[in-house]
Structure formats: structure tokens, C-alpha cells
């Protein structure tokens, strides 16, 4: 092990160090180049001197987790070396800016807060699907790609620094080594402050803090310097953000305060469902949270403080994407026969009975030719779009789902499959349920929509067909 700290120009395993990006107390981060790798690179080198083992363990943890992650929402792992020699971690360098740069501009416009929040939630959802909880979500650890990897839409969020993360299927070195919770005080979830490290919804709390901060310019729980002060958030609720920013829409306060719930079970069940809310403000079910104008009274706070039952308990988190999926049911209002509509509802109903955390997005594709050919307004003055929404609600009524578990969406497009696929991609959909087109002549002419969706969807697809009587 070299006692000398690395410098620009140093060569390590074929990597040439460039400009220093960060020289912290725990590690140095350099730009790097390597003849075999064309992408921009960075190299993280932990400092070996110094007594604090925490940063060594964080480095080990990141070295363990990063190679096992994939997708556009994490930097791509390139290479690593252990502690036999100079340890390092080489990875893709994300060229876009970190959210840290935006702190000067707070508060941001509502649309931008929602857009940032939705993209971070999508990134968290992808991370949680890979069984990793980040546990240090904060502006400095969120970057945005210069251009979206798909080529359209807004730039994707990238999560960096997995030094405090927890992988559900790997030994947790942080938990082994330290009995005090590690994280960043303003953003840390209450259960994390109590030492729990296996709860993905801790990341939703941290994102809630970030949304609060970006919407109001203030931190909901301040910046406490001691753990005892961090734990105060177990009983002391935040000032409702609309009090600090009266023009904040009720739906966004609803979403933020739901993220900040002390009990993880009262937050959104998954990051995908949070992303869904942030992408569909009109579909957010408003509760008392949305209208709250002041913090809870001292009596309620005292009650929480003395009532230990309300403290989060250690245990296996129940909600996973498997238990709380986003299900899309594609309803074809024009060609669907009554038996097929019935079969489709029955299929969705069966899924919902076994998955109490699931939410359903009921979608219909309004083909552009209807928009172009027919006048947008029909004789009675109602837009085709609204008419479709009404019909979707009518279709779903027999399911008997309460408000908040089901939402209705009319998508536009020139074909039926593409809008559905885009919707599934953008909203972290876990399962698409759709009917098979019954008319074989139409199917021959137009091709099978369900076939195309099933072949290209990023998730499970159930194609429902009504059982026909034998001739």
C-alpha cells in the first residue's frame, strides 16, 4: 500500500488519472482514462491513512454493490481493486450536473419539483428492483444524464455513491461494523435513525425531504448535528409545506407529507407508485394531508413521544414491487365484446385480491385518426377525451375499487401498441393486462396489438381471451 496520495498523471492498472474532481477526507475522486474504455471515467480512491474505519467499510460496500447494479440510473461499473494494493473503484463518469447545483435556486417551480421527483423516484424504483436500498439520497448523490439514454423525454436521474447502501442478498458490512446509523441527518428516515437498514421506503422519506426542500427552500427537519436531534422526527412532524409556500398545490403537499410519514407502511408502497403520483397530479387521491395548515398540537406530539408502539420496529419490510405492483389494464372500448370485458375485469379482480398493495391504471388509447378525422367536440359539446374517461370509469365500476387504487388515463397515438409500451416504460409498470382482439379479420389486417405489446413490454403481460363456446 502506498502511503502517498494519488495525483493527476498517476497510472493505476492501465487507468491514467486526470483532473481531481473531489479531494475529501475519506476518498479522492479523479477523472480517468483507459485505452480500453471509450466512455468518460472516474476513479474513486479511498484514503488508507487515518483511524476511521467507516470510510473503508463504505468503500468495501460500494465495491460490493456497484458491479451488481445495471441500467441507466446508476453509473456503469468498470473495474475495481481491493486492499491488497492501492484500492480503487473505476466507473462511468456522469457528465450531467448534480442536484447540489440547484440549491441556490430554491424554491423551484412546482412542475420542476414534480419532474425532478418523478425521475428520482423512477431511478429509486429501478434500484429497489435490484434489491438495493440507497440509504443516502440527497442532492449531492443525484445527477442527471446530459441527454436521456432513450433519446427522448427528460434527462434521467442517476444515483451515485452506494457506500451506505444495503443489498438484500449480500452481507451488510455497515450493519456489522457500526451500531450507529449512518446517513445524512436532514434526509435520514426515522427508522434509519433507529438503526434499521433493510427498508427501501427509507429512500422515499429522503426523497420526500428533498421535494419539501426544493418546493419551499427549507428543510422539514432542519439540519440536526446529533443523533438524538435526528430522532426528534419520530414524533415531531414537519410544518406543512403549503404554509411556507401557499401556492403549492394540495396534491404536491399530499405526496410530500405521505413520503414523510414516520411509519414506512403509510408512505407509498413503492418508489414506482410515488413516481406514478408525481407524473399524474390529477390522479393523486387527496386526504387530510393535502389541506393541513399547521403542525400537530403539543398533546398529539407528546402522545407520540411517550407511545413507544408508534416507533418504527425492526423487521423485514413487507412492501416490494412484487406485493405492490402498478398494473395497467388496457381497455379497448370500441371492439370489446361483453364476454371479453367481463373476462378482463375478472382477471384484474383476481390480481387485486392477491395483491392488496397493487394500484391499477385503467388506460385507453385514443387513436390519432379519431382526433384528426372526427371533430374533437361531439354534438353535445363533450370532448372525445372526456367521453373516453367516462366510459373507462363505467367499465371499471364493477371492480368496486376505492378512489386512489385506480386511476384513468386516455393516451394518444397513431397505433395502439406504441402508446401502451411508452406508458409502461415511463411509469415503471409491472404488469399489463389486456384483451385479445377477437375479430380475426381485423387481427389479420392490423396485426395483433397484444402480440406486439407482449413481445416488447418491459414487464409481464397477460392477454385475456373470453372462452368461446365450441361450435
Amino acid at each position, binding site marked *: 500500500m502506498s502511503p502517498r496520495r494519488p495525483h493527476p498523471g498517476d497510472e493505476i492498472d492501465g487507468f491514467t488519472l486526470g483532473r481531481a474532481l473531489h479531494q475529501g477526507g475519506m476518498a479522492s475522486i479523479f477523472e480517468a482514462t483507459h485505452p480500453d474504455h471509450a466512455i468518460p471515467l472516474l476513479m474513486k480512491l479511498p484514503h488508507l491513512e487515518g483511524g476511521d474505519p467507516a470510510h473503508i467499510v463504505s468503500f*468495501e460496500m460500494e465495491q460490493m454493490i456497484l458491479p451488481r447494479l445495471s441500467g441507466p440510473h446508476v453509473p456503469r461499473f468498470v473495474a475495481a481493486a*481491493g486492499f491488497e494494493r492501492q484500492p480503487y473503484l473505476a466507473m462511468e463518469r456522469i457528465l450531467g450536473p448534480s442536484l447540489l447545483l440547484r440549491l441556490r435556486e430554491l424554491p423551484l417551480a412546482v412542475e420542476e419539483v414534480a419532474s425532478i421527483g418523478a425521475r428520482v423516484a423512477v431511478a429509486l424504483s429501478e434500484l429497489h428492483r435490484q434489491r438495493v436500498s440507497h440509504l443516502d439520497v440527497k442532492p449531492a448523490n443525484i445527477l442527471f444524464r446530459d441527454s436521456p439514454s432513450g433519446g427522448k423525454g427528460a434527462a434521467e436521474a442517476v444515483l451515485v455513491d452506494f457506500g451506505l447502501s444495503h443489498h438484500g442478498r449480500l452481507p451488510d458490512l455497515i450493519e456489522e*461494523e457500526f451500531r450507529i446509523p449512518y446517513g445524512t441527518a436532514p434526509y435520514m428516515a426515522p427508522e434509519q435513525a433507529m438503526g434499521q437498514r433493510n427498508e427501501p421506503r427509507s429512500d422515499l422519506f429522503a426523497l420526500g425531504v428533498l421535494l419539501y426542500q426544493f418546493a419551499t427552500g427549507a428543510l422539514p427537519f432542519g439540519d440536526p448535528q446529533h443523533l438524538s436531534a435526528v430522532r426528534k422526527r419520530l414524533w415531531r412532524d414537519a410544518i406543512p409545506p403549503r404554509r411556507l409556500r401557499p401556492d403549492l398545490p394540495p396534491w404536491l403537499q399530499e405526496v410530500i407529507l405521505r413520503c414523510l410519514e414516520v411509519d414506512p407502511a403509510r408512505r407509498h408502497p413503492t418508489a414506482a407508485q410515488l413516481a406514478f403520483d408525481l407524473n399524474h397530479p390529477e390522479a393523486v387521491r387527496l386526504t387530510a394531508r393535502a389541506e393541513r395548515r399547521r403542525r400537530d398540537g403539543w398533546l398529539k406530539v407528546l402522545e407520540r413521544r411517550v407511545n413507544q408502539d408508534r416507533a418504527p420496529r425492526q423487521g423485514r419490510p413487507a412492501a416490494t414491487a412484487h406485493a405492490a405492483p402498478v398494473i395497467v389494464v388496457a381497455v379497448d372500448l370500441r371492439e370489446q365484446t361483453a364476454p371479453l370485458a367481463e373476462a378482463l375485469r375478472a382477471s384484474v379482480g383476481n390480481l387485486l385480491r392477491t395483491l392488496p398493495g397493487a394500484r391499477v391504471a385503467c388506460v385507453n388509447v385514443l387513436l390519432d385518426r379519431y382526433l384528426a378525422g372526427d371533430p374533437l367536440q361531439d354534438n353535445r359539446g363533450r370532448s372525445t377525451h372526456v367521453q373516453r374517461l367516462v366510459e373507462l370509469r363505467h367499465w371499471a365500476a364493477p371492480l368496486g375499487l376505492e378512489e386512489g387504487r385506480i386511476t384513468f388515463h386516455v393516451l394518444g397515438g397513431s397505433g395502439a401498441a406504441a402508446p401502451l409500451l411508452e406508458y409502461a416504460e415511463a411509469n415503471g409498470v409491472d404488469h399489463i393486462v389486456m384483451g385479445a382482439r377477437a375479430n380475426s379479420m381485423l387481427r389479420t389486417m392490423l396485426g395483433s396489438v397484444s402480440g406486439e405489446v407482449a413481445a416488447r413490454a418491459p414487464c409481464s403481460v397477460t392477454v385475456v381471451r373470453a372462452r368461446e363456446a365450441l361450435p
Partner: protein
Amino acid sequence: MIAILSDIHANREALSACLAHADGAGATRLVFLGDIIGYGADPAWCLRTVMDRIAHGAVAILGNHDQALFARSARMNGRAAAAMEWTRAQLSPDAGDFLRTLPLEHAEEDRLFVHADASDPAAWRYVTGPLEARRSFEGTPARVTICGHVHVPRLFGLTAAEKCTGFTPTPGMPVPLSRPRRWLAVVGAVGQPRDGNPAAGYALLDPDTSEMRWMRVPYDVEAAAGKIRRAGLPESLATRLFAGA
């Protein structure tokens, strides 16, 4: 890739399934961690198979049941003792001669292979929790110790701060046994799993990356249990295979 097979316990069906799986997974070396015999109904076949693999470069170490064949052990429970009496009657004297030659432990590079607690291999102590793991860590300089005997897959890590904690591996998930940390890996049992999963267990270790995978292989439990019953061995030795208990 090294395949590590422990606690075969004369279960031919489980051993065949694991060997086929390990061959398919690209294992180029085999280490048998002891207890080839005892409990199950195919001691002769299992011994012959292990001996054949040793002739092709495999390593085998001694387990307490193997030892009981040639040195009567006072510490065996009723079922195990009854099964050992039956086993002894099935095997020729050569079997004892072979088992006598097996070492109590085998070290290579920074790894130690041993059947039970490494601090005193001949005492056959179980490594069931962090306390026992710590005793084992303290008894060997090896960075990575790999043992069996418990029939339940576990991984213990000893940190720089001398803390010892346990982890239950997920089947098939590679776990890096990274430096400078010390690790004690308990591989599950091939022939008599006791963690509630009846599938045969063995482990794969990649010495280049120091990554270990705990594998589970379904096998014909029906057939193995049927042979135990027909041999007149204690019924519970057959039923426990179905439950992995």
C-alpha cells in the same frame, strides 16, 4: 472454479445431482468436506464415487461420521449410532482403510477446508453462530475458512474491528469474500439439508474473484428416502429428507 461438497451422508441421489450440477457449472476442482457416509443408504457407492474423484485430483477431508467407522465415537446420538452400525455392515474393510487416510483439514493459499470448528477440528464442534465462528477464526490464520457439519448454509465475517456477524446466503447469489476481511463459510449439506429446504446443497468458490455461491439442487428425495426405509434404517432419517429438517 472449486466445488465444495459437504455432508453427503450416503445419499447417492443427492451426490449425483450435485456432481452433475457442479460439472455443468464449470467446476474444475472438487473438495469433499467430510461425512461421506452415515444416515443414508448408499455408503459404498458414495465412497467409491469420492475415491474415484480423488484419483482425478479432488481433495477430501475427514468428517465425524467417517471417523466413526474406524474409531468408535462415544458422542453419537442413537439414530446416528444405529445408522453407523448398519453402515459398518455394508462396507468392506478397505473403506475404513481409505477413510483413515483422510486429513482433518486441508489448507491452500489463504483458504482452509475443515469439517467443523477450525480451532480444534477433531473436537467436531458445530459452528452455528457468531460466538462459535469467532472461536474458529481465532484458531486459524486462514483468511477464508470453509466448513460443513451444521447442514445449514451460513456466512460469518470478521471485521477489522474484530466484530463477528452472521449472514444467510441466498441460493445462487455470488457473495464476494473480499479482502482484508476474514470469512467463515458454512456450506450446506449435500445429503441431509436441515434449513427447511430439501434441495441438496453445495458451494462454488471462484478463487480468482473470491466469490462464493451457495447452490441448491433438487434431487430425487423419494428414491433416497425409499432406500433408507427398505434398509430398515430409522424412519426419521427418511422423513427428514422430505422436509429438509
